[in-house]
């Protein structure tokens, strides 16, 4: 019927009466790279929390490939094909880059297969390929603790891809990066977008311009303020008022 990968209907999340998300509606096609922007506290991270099952909706529902995600635990949602990158890079610091990826690439994540199983040669090849994609060949056997901030960001994105998810959720992948690293991460996301649906949350306008090929959604106070191409959104007076703060230079 539809090729909507994600549909969100009348979603409300309240924390002790405070509505972090307020009657939010959202939908996105398979294969799209969607960028979500919004001021601090707009509810962007909470939005991802609901999709991934970390937070349960107070009202409304989330459909992934047409299936309601209500009450499904996080690991099952992940196995259904949603991968998530956190706002601060969260990799396993006491494992090497390769071990980090291998853990995620494991095809059967139940207890006993993990205990008795070995990494298959396909998995090993996948991991080796991924290490190349994220540009960490030279540091593959280094503890993740020793990586720089940007390298950790890339490693975590690599870990998402290792799950071979259909939908990637990345929360502020460019936060705290140098310009060069930002460009690296942007290029990485764009190349991933060829084969995955992606939701990227971002603050950095430079970065948003780099990666926003499709639609941009603006969140404000827990609801969608507006949606459209980057140029439209940038020139929308409401957006300028709540978020960009000042009119664009041109």
């Amino acid at each position, binding site marked *: 019927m539809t090729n909507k990968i994600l549909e969100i209907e009348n979603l409300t999340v309240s924390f002790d009466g405070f509505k972090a998300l307020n009657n939010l509606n959202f939908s996105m096609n398979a294969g799209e790279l969607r960028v979500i922007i919004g001021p601090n506290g707009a509810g962007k991270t909470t939005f991802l929390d609901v999709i*991934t099952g*970390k937070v349960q909706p107070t009202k409304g529902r989330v459909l992934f490939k047409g299936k309601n995600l209500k009450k499904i*635990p*996080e*690991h099952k949602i*992940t*196995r259904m094909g949603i*991968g*998530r990158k*956190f706002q*601060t*890079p*969260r*990799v*396993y*610091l*006491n*494992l090497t880059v390769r*071990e980090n990826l*291998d*853990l*995620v690439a*494991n095809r059967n*994540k*139940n*207890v006993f297969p*993990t*205990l008795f*199983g*070995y*990494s298959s040669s396909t998995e090993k090849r996948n991991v080796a390929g991924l290490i190349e994609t994220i540009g960490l060949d030279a540091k593959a056997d280094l503890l993740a603790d*020793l*990586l*720089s*901030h940007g390298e950790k960001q890339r490693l975590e994105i690599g*870990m998402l891809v290792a*799950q071979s998810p259909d939908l990637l959720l990345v929360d502020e992948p460019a936060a*705290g990066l140098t310009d060069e690293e930002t460009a690296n991460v942007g290029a990485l996301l764009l190349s991933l977008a060829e084969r995955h649906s992606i939701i990227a949350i971002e603050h950095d306008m430079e970065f948003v311009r780099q990666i926003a090929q499709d639609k941009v959604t603006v969140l404000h106070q827990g609801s969608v303020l507006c949606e459209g191409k980057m140029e439209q959104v940038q020139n929308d007076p409401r957006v300028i008022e709540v978020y960009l703060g000042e009119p664009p230079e041109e």
Partner: protein
Amino acid sequence: MDSELNIGIYKKKKQQRKQLIEAGIIIAIALIFAIILPIVLPAFRLRLFGRFLALTIVALGIDLIWGYTGLLSLGHGIFFALGGYAIAMHLKLQIPEGQLPDFFTLYGVNKLPWFWQPFYSFPFTLVALVVIPGIVAGLLGYLVFRNRIKGVYFSILTQAALLVFFNFFNGQQKLINGTNGLKTDTERIFDLLVSSATVQRTFYILTVIFLVLIYLFCRWLTSGRFGRLLIAIRDDETRVRFSGYDPTGFKVLVFAISGAIAGIAGALYTVQTGIITPAIMQVAFSIEMVIWVAVGGRGTLIGAIIGTLLVRLAQTFLSERFPQVWLFFQGALFLTVVTVLPNGIVGWFKDYAWQKVQFLLGLRQPLVTYPQIEEDPAIQREREQLTRE
């Protein structure tokens, strides 16, 4: 491509050599323990040392659950005691048919309680002393982990469980002789007195064998993907969920294994002590187990063994000469380790001393690290955030 392959082969060879060296060391130490010590040590010293070795086994179990998986159990006395009681009940039943273990008559019990029956069987007892503690640990773990209880709350719950068991065992005179516990020294096994030198030496050698086997088992468990997952759970459980794993099953399994190991340790300890009483489930003893692992070095396995032996040998030495100072010494030792050597003796050796030694011997260049990593503000901020969570 070619050079990469060569590097791969070289690495493999180096790894194999390392494993061979390690296997050699383990065999050598095991042989010294099993053959030389029984010759040179007087019987009562050997018996004491055997008890210490039994304690190193429970320390391995603690290291699995705490050092690798990050769950601080303060209730391992339960599993230790269950193993000890299982073997003691079997030994108590080595009496002419129709008779009851002596203590029952004191309380006017003239029929063997039903749950004693299966302990007539030696094979059943052997299975029970592993499986019962394992199942109890697994059940407790399941209830706790399913509800996502972790950190301090987990520790408090294990301690509470320990108190429940302690009080229950103390109160059951008619079933297991309550506070007085079960004496094994005067019982017989395979028609030999349990306290005789031959039997005790056999128990000692069995303890060495079990220690080696359980050590190897723990090594296997922690070295592959499974072990890496345990470390991942310890470091960032939420991330593990979002990698598609359900941590609950893994934690339950490790806790059950850890409990089963404690059961084996408890049985070996009991037969070399001569008695088991509920006092083994006192809070202080379960905390002491944690101290051994902390002193030796969490998450190193070998550290658990070294820590236990060191603390216990120091205790024997000090309390023989200066009986009053031991408790102070133990407290001071723990404080020193926590503040000065947070990774324990083995951790310190690995992180620092070993490199120094290698450097002094000219085996290795001094390590070049990335100083900018330590200074990068983004990294510091992120570390803070991670530790806060």
